[in-house]
């Protein structure tokens, strides 16, 4: 026996609908089996609450007198995109304030508006016959806008890669702060209660599906960008004026920037046994991978495969060690979303819709087409290496003769054990220290790998305030040297 969405909506109107949360549904199916559960339950509410960077709001400010065709516009000093009609703009959540930098951004402006606060609008223009005004500064609140429509190109990731860090320094990423030497793991997504995991064939979640978006009724308008099932995503819209501040939160990922946590809930109509079975999915059936952010490349190495059940347990094993795990999504809030949506349906305030179009059940994510990826190997020069027993006097002679500033110090197998710069040598001479280079060399050397992109090498030099990196192979044997001069020559050619 199959149900229809019309039948379920009739039950919602009558107040006789049986609606449960995804959490409750797992238990029900376990107890009754999928067939019986599909007869008993009409709707399962799912929820997620996490950082969703690909979000923002289209706004229409109304026309000033005399009118202006906004060329650039800022709200509380956060720029919005206005390369559309005169007083339309799109404010993205990750856009940073021009005066306050990383502590305030688009997400904060949106949250401030929803909380009823006024924000400062500043716009400039070149002036035209039809729009003569060149500048405007005013205060606006959400109620002053003609429209404020949240349109998010990529939300509600079905599942996401977990993150760790093999390098020897703290990394501050969009996945939170990652401690060195596999010090912790972070992950995003709500696993078994997350919307797309409960309808993985996307039978009921499609274009036109009415959803809960930050407390308002919103709609799915298509698959999201980078939609790659089972890493599916959604593009959604909703009226900002109907949203509730408790279901959104502007946050700052230290060292990365501003983003926004959003609460999204999707009702899944239990039309048949298959859907009942799908909504019974458990965290131990949802797989993802832990990837290594210690490697600053697009294709970061996979450390291991992992289930959401393991991630949610709070610890995972990596290379025989127990590593603690932090979620980045808030289950506490995701559960609130599920429960609020359940309440709305129960009370007859929220009706379900039939999707007008399905979203793709497969997809591929292509890398960016680049002219070329320049790697360290292509710009490195030959390194002049010395042994640790070389005298400082001899080192100074080599520096002059070979016209170099950096002498990597290697053992008898060519393995890097230190580095001496012309500065170290000059300092040693000035202080009257005329021993061996091993007395003055730096032992903790920052290095580069031959196939590392030059951007990564440049970032290391900038971070550590150094001007060259020895290039080493996996066994730490010196292959060459990359200097800031080599890189700036390259940049000059661009």
């Amino acid at each position, binding site marked *: 026996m199959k149900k229809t969405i019309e039948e379920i909506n009739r039950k919602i109107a009558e107040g006789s609908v049986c609606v449960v949360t995804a959490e409750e549904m797992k238990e029900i199916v376990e107890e009754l089996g999928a067939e019986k559960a599909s007869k008993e339950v009409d709707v399962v509410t799912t929820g997620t609450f*996490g950082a969703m960077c690909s979000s923002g709001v289209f706004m229409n400010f109304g026309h000033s007198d005399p009118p202006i065709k906004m060329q650039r516009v800022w709200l509380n000093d956060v720029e919005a995109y206005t390369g559309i009609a005169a007083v339309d703009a799109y404010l993205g959540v990750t856009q940073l304030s021009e005066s306050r930098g990383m502590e305030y951004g688009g997400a904060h402006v949106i949250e401030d508006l929803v909380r009823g606060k006024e924000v400062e609008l500043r716009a400039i223009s070149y002036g035209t016959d039809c729009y003569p005004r060149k500048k405007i500064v005013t205060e606006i609140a959400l109620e002053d806008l003609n429209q404020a429509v949240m349109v998010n190109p990529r939300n509600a990731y079905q599942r996401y890669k977990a993150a760790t860090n093999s390098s020897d320094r703290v990394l501050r990423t969009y996945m939170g702060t990652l*401690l060195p030497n596999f010090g912790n793991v972070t992950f995003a997504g709500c696993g078994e209660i997350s919307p797309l995991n409960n309808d993985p064939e996307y039978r009921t979640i499609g274009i036109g599906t009415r959803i809960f978006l930050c407390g308002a009724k919103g709609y799915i308008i298509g698959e999201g960008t980078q939609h790659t099932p089972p890493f599916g995503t959604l593009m959604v819209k909703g009226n900002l004026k109907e949203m509730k501040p408790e279901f959104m939160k502007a946050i700052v*990922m230290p060292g990365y920037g501003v983003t926004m946590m959003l609460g999204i809930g999707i009702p899944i109509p239990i039309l048949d046994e298959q859907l009942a079975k799908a909504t019974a999915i458990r965290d131990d059936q949802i797989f993802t991978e832990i990837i290594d952010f210690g490697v600053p490349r697009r294709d970061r190495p996979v450390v291991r495969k992992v289930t959401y059940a393991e991630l949610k347990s709070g610890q995972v094993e990596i290379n025989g060690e127990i590593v603690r*795990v932090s979620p*980045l999504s*808030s*289950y506490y*809030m995701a559960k609130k979303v599920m429960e609020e949506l359940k309440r709305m349906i129960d009370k007859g305030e929220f009706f379900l819709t039939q999707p007008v179009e399905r979203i793709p059940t497969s997809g591929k994510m292509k890398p960016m087409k680049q002219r070329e990826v320049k790697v360290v190997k292509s710009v490195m020069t030959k390194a002049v290496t010395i042994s640790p027993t070389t005298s400082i006097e001899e080192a100074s002679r080599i520096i002059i003769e070979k016209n170099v500033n950096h002498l990597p110090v290697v053992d008898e197998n060519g393995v890097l054990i230190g580095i001496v710069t012309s500065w170290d040598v000059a300092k040693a001479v000035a202080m009257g220290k005329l021993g061996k280079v091993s007395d003055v060399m730096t032992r903790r050397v920052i290095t580069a790998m031959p196939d590392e992109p030059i951007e990564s090498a440049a970032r290391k030099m900038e971070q550590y305030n150094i001007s060259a990196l020895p290039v080493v192979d996996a066994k730490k044997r010196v292959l060459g040297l990359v200097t800031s001069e080599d890189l700036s020559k390259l940049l000059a050619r661009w």
Partner: protein
Amino acid sequence: MLMLLKFDSKTIKKPIISTATLETNALINILRANVGARRGEMVVEVDDSKAKEVEEIFRRFGVEVIELKEAVVKDEDKCIHCGLCISICPVEVFKFDENWKVIAETEKCIHCGVCIKVCPCQALSLPI
């Protein structure tokens, strides 16, 4: 009792912790130490029964002693319960309760301040 000790250029060179232990028989647990050439800071834990005695010795040497009464504070209005602090805290102050709410067992806090810098909601602070 938790104490924050501040050493200046004179006291930093002296074996004050060992002296305090030898004189009082107190076990002094060093939770955090930052020792430089001219100054240093240390957070130590001493059993309450011996705390006064140990503190006296530190002061006698000229070490500045600040008793740490309040641990990390979590602003419940700001916390969104993402749990990022859980895997960062070296002494496991933070954990989820049965409703996935982040709770802080502040008596474990060693005042390292690491969590304050990672919280995306600026919900954590460390009063001195």
